[in-house]
C-alpha cells in the first residue's frame, strides 16, 4: 500500500474541495427545487416546518440505506439485501429487548451488529467465492428475510426500551431524531467517501479493479469492508424503522433495496462504478420524499406515485447522459 492514491494535488475549486472531484449531479438539485415549488403552489400545507421535518422523517430509513448503497454502487457493486436486513436486524434488536429483557445499549448494538454481520457475510462470499454481488446479495435478500420470519415466527415483536424508541420518535430541539441521525450519517459518510483513502479506494475499485490492484489496493479486503458498511447502515435503518413503530417487524423494509438504489441513481452515482456522491444521494432521497409527501397531500392514488418515481428515475439518468460531456462513456 502506498500513498500514491491520495487525491490529486492540482488546484481545485471550492466546489471540488468541499464535495470532492466527483460532484453531485446539479440537475437533481434543480428537480428538487422545482418539485418543491410545484407542491407549494398546489398544496398550502406543503411548505411548513412541520411538513418539512415530516418529509425528511419519511426519507430517513431508506436515506440511510441509500448512503450505504452509494459506497457499494460506486465500487461497481450492488447490494440487494439491505431491505431484508432492515427486517432482520430490527427483529434481532427487538428480541434482545422484548424477549430477553436485556438493557437498551445491548438492543442498539445487537441491531447494528446483526446488520453488519449480514453485510460482512455478503462481502466474504463475494470476494472469497468470486461470485457476482448481484447473486450473493440476492441470496442474502432471501436468507435475511427468512431468518427474520423464523426468529419472530412471522409476528411483529412489540415493545422496545424507551431509550431506543426515542431514536425513532424523540424530538430533541423540536427536530425528529431520525432526521438528525440521517444528517449525521450523511455527513460522516460524505467525509469518508471524499476525504479518506477508504472512499477514494472504493471509487478507484469501481473505476478499474485491476488498476486498483496494480496500485496496491487490497481489493478483496476493501470490498468486504464496503459490504460490511452497507450492512451496518442497513442495521441502522432497521434500528430507526423499529424505533419509529416501537416494534421489530419481520416484513419491515420489504423492497426498500429498490428505493435505496433509486435514490442513489437519481443522485448521480454511476451504476457502473467509479463515481459517487453522498450529497447527491441525499438530494435523490429527498426528491422521492417530496414526491411521495406531495402526492399524499394531494390525495393522488399510490399507483400514480410509483409512476412518478419511475419517471423521475429514468428522467434523471437521461438528463445526465444528454448533458454529460462524457456521453455514453462512463
Amino acid at each position, binding site marked *: 500500500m502506498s500513498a500514491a492514491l491520495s487525491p490529486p494535488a492540482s488546484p481545485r475549486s471550492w466546489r471540488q474541495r468541499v464535495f470532492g472531484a466527483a460532484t453531485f449531479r446539479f440537475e437533481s438539485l434543480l428537480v428538487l427545487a422545482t418539485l418543491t415549488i410545484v407542491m407549494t403552489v398546489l398544496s398550502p400545507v406543503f411548505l411548513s416546518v*412541520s411538513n418539512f421535518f415530516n418529509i425528511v422523517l419519511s426519507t430517513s430509513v431508506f436515506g440511510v440505506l441509500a448512503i450505504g448503497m452509494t459506497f457499494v454502487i460506486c465500487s461497481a457493486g450492488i447490494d440487494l439485501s439491505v431491505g431484508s436486513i432492515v427486517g432482520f436486524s430490527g427483529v434481532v434488536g427487538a428480541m434482545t429487548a422484548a424477549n430477553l429483557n436485556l438493557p437498551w445499549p445491548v438492543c442498539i448494538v445487537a441491531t447494528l451488529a446483526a446488520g453488519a454481520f449480514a453485510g460482512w457475510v455478503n462481502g466474504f462470499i463475494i470476494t472469497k467465492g468470486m461470485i457476482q454481488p448481484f447473486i450473493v446479495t440476492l441470496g442474502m435478500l432471501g436468507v435475511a428475510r427468512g431468518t427474520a420470519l423464523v426468529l419472530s415466527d412471522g409476528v411483529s415483536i412489540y415493545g422496545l426500551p424507551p431509550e431506543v424508541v426515542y431514536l425513532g420518535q424523540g424530538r430533541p430541539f423540536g427536530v425528529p431524531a431520525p432526521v438528525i441521525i440521517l444528517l449525521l450519517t450523511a455527513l460522516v459518510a460524505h467525509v469518508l467517501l471524499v476525504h479518506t483513502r477508504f472512499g477514494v479506494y472504493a471509487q478507484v475499485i469501481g473505476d478499474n479493479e485491476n488498476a486498483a490492484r496494480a496500485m496496491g489496493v487490497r481489493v478483496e479486503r476493501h470490498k468486504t469492508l464496503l459490504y460490511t458498511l452497507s450492512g451496518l447502515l442497513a442495521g441502522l435503518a432497521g434500528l430507526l424503522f423499529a424505533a419509529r413503530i416501537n416494534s421489530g417487524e419481520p416484513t419491515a423494509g420489504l423492497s426498500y433495496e429498490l428505493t435505496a438504489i433509486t435514490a442513489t441513481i437519481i443522485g448521480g452515482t454511476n451504476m457502473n462504478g467509479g463515481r459517487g456522491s453522498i450529497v447527491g444521494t441525499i438530494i435523490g432521497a429527498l426528491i422521492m420524499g417530496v414526491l411521495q409527501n406531495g402526492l399524499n397531500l394531494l390525495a393522488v392514488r399510490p399507483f400514480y406515485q410509483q409512476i412518478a418515481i419511475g419517471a423521475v428515475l429514468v428522467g434523471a439518468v437521461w438528463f445526465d447522459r444528454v448533458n454529460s460531456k462524457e456521453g455514453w462513456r462512463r
Partner: protein
Amino acid sequence: MLKTLIAGASALALTLAVAGSASAADKPLYGALMKTLSNPFWGAMEKGVDAGAQKADVELFMEAVESDQATEPQLNACNTMLEKKPAVMITAAISSTNLLPCLKHANELKIPVVDLDGNLDPEITKKAGVDVAFHIGSDNQAAGAKAADYLISALGKDAKGSVLVIEGLSGNITGAKRANGFAEELKKAAPGFAIVASLPGDWDSLKAANITNDTLQRYPDLAAIFCANDDMALGAVEAARAAGKDKLIVIGVDGNVNAVKSINAGRLNASVAQLPYLVGMQAVENAKKVLAGEKVAEFTYVPTLVLTKATLDSKTDPLLQYVK
C-alpha cells in the same frame, strides 16, 4: 437544459393540478387511511367509506399505500394526513403497531381515531397510550365458524372426511382468527371431520393452488377445503377442479367480486361475505356520531353473510345489496 426542465416542471404541475383539484367547501374534513386499493376487499371498503361520506355530507380525504406490506409508507402517509388537520382519522392499520406514533399524535391534536376493520390490538394501544374512539370491522372468528356451519349443512352432521385448511399470511391475526374459528366450530359440531393439514397460503392464489395439488396427492379423497380468503379459495377451487375433484367443497371468506363470479359459475361452493362496503359506510356514520358527542359502542361487528349459489340466485337477503 433549463428550458427542458421548466417545460417538464410545468407539465408536471399541470398533471398534478388536474389530479389534485379538491373542492374546498366548508364541510368538515374526514381523513381515511386505507391499506391498499389493489384488492377487491379494500376496493369495496373504499366505496363504502365514500358512500358513507356522501351520506354524512362531509368532505373525504382518502389515502392508501401501494401494498398491504408497506408499513412504513403507511405511517408516513398517516403523518402527512395529520398535516391537513382532519376532524377525524379513520385508519385501517397494516399491522397493530405501525401507525401508533401517528395515532398518538392525532390524540394530542384532539383528533378522534377510528380503527377500521379491527386491525388494532386494544391491549397494545392501551400500552402505547393511544385512545381509540371505536373499533369497527368483521368478526373473523365468527366468519370461520360460519364456514364450518356451511360445510356441515352441505355434508351432514355425522359425515366423515378429511379437510384441508389454507391459512393466510403466517402470523397475520385476521387469517389466524378465521382458521381458528373454522377449526373450533368443526371440532365441536361435527367431530367426524378431520383437519389433515393447516398450511399458510400467504393470501396468494397460486400458493393455495399448489398446496391443494400437493395435499390431493396425499389425500385423494379430501372432502373439503377452507381458505382464509377468497383469492386463495379461487386458486384452490381451480386446482381441485383441474384435478377432476368436482365434488370437493371449497369455501372462502370475503365475498369478493371474483368469488361471486365463481359461485355463479358453479365452481366455488361458498364464501363467507364480510361486507367491507357496509363496514366502511358504518365507520363514517359512527365517526359522525362521535364528533357530535354521541356515544358509540367500543366494538362494532358488522354481520356476515354466507354466499352460495342458492342465496345469490334467490336475491332475497337484504344484506346482498352490500356485496360489492
